[in-house]
């Protein structure tokens, strides 16, 4: 945890942190910084902010530190932190909410994670299901990790795990429309919340 100048934190910044907490269903005041979330996190070793610190910076209203952090993108959404928190703070949801806020702010602290999810959803939108070989190929191409898991792809091929005739949802046009409607509803909700915020000011 580094020291930050709290005088530089604007009301808007504090409000943005509170919005994230609200989306996550978290009351930031509940966290008393015991660190149990971090102790159990299987990926803490690789994170730039410890899970506890993400909550701390949100408490302080330091929105930029949080939105630029790699941590929410490294998080595997395993829910160990939330499950062990003595104060019932849903840190895992907070990670998700920070990540979405960061994505909507046009930031990509860890491009690989974002590319993977985008390709996953694009794949589902087209096929109705997740076609693992298309997903891996598209991901490798876009993330520029061309050879990643190529050895494993061959091993899968040998075992008839890929390349076989696979399930495609017959109503995949329905699924594409569903994805579009869901994303529209998502955008409308965010636009509404921006408008409410504007009204407050």
């Amino acid at each position: 945890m580094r020291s930050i100048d709290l005088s530089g934190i604007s009301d808007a910044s504090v409000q943005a942190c509170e919005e994230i907490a609200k989306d996550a269903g978290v009351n930031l005041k509940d966290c008393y910084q015991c660190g149990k979330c971090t102790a159990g996190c299987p990926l803490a070793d690789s994170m730039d902010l410890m899970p506890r610190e993400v909550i701390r910076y949100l408490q302080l209203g330091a929105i930029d530190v949080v939105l630029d952090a790699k941590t929410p993108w490294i998080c595997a959404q395993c829910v160990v932190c939330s499950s062990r928190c003595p104060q019932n703070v849903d840190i895992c949801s907070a990670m998700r909410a920070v990540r979405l806020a960061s994505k909507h702010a046009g930031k990509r602290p860890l491009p690989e994670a974002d590319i993977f999810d985008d390709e996953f959803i694009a794949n589902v939108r087209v096929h109705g299901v997740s076609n693992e070989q298309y997903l891996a190929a598209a991901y490798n191409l876009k993330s520029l990790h061309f050879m990643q898991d190529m050895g494993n792809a061959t091993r899968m091929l040998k075992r008839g795990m890929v390349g076989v005739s696979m399930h495609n949802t017959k109503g995949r046009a329905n699924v594409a429309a569903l994805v579009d409607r869901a994303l529209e509803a998502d955008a409308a909700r965010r636009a509404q919340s921006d408008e409410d915020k504007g009204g407050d000011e």
Partner: protein
Amino acid sequence: MKYSYFPGCSANTTGKSFTVSTSYVAEKIGVELVEIPDWNCCGTSAAALTSPELAVALPARSLAISERELPGLDVVAPCAGCYRSLKTSVAFARESEDNRTLIKKIINAPYEAKADVLTLLEVFATDEAREAIAAKVQRKLRCLKVACYYGCAMVRPADVCECDNVEDPMEMDDLMALIGAEPVDWAFKTECCGAAQQMTIPVQAKPMIERIFQNAQANGADCIVTSCPLCMLNLDMREAEINKARVARGEEPFDIPCYYFTELIGLAFGAGPDEVGIDIHFHPAKNLLLQRELDALELEEAENIARAEEERKKAEIAAKIAAKKAEKAAKEKAAQEAAAQAATQPEEGKEAAE
């Protein structure tokens, strides 16, 4: 025992062995799994990390089809990732009328979230299913020490998954004990396998798998038993990569095969390894089973010899007791006769004296 069945995207690909072994076991014990017509991907964490609306709507489409086409049936989702997505969607829909209205609008279909969502473990752990499993066991998988690995998505979040033992679940352990295997006590039952992060941040995520193998080994397990195709893929397929790195660091490679719990139940029912999909595992998985089958036979033989020896000893002691008793009885009889004689003799003596 009839359920609506949500196979999930990996059912015909990377999770083939799970599908094959599941239908093998289900058929044998009279569990009927009816596939949801035209189901679609649950969206898994990718949807949750894209949009909350998408995360609840993608599963709801398949659940709504199930509600219409397979009314009254609970939905079973073998993959833990699918299970968590479906279950989260149901919980959201049940929360309020507003939530249901939102979902119906997005999926463009009626949906009331009537059916519950279950894991395959829950389906096989009912009293009825357990009785049926016990009745079908032909060969107990004795001597096989198993580390039952549940992963995270089946147990967490505890309120969504309705799990009351997040750190130490026992359903799989109990099923393994039922077929004669020996579940070990270990600490990584519900640690995360890394899920999709094994693709996006492989360097950082690899140690998650290595620690799972390490803890299983440290607690004396021969193998890891899983109940999720993604956990299985991450462990079984990546064991080779991990071993390569270990060897390069001068450490011993692991030799810990992974199995689906359904594969092991199938074996206990008398199936050959190929019948339940063990032939397409990444890490060699057949020799351990053969070795433990031999160990079990040897153990049985030793037990039979010990039992026969015990019987022989028992008979020997019983014979000795009988002999002792007979000897004692004979002695007592002789003593009685002697006493009786002694009682009459003085009379005789007197008579003689007179």
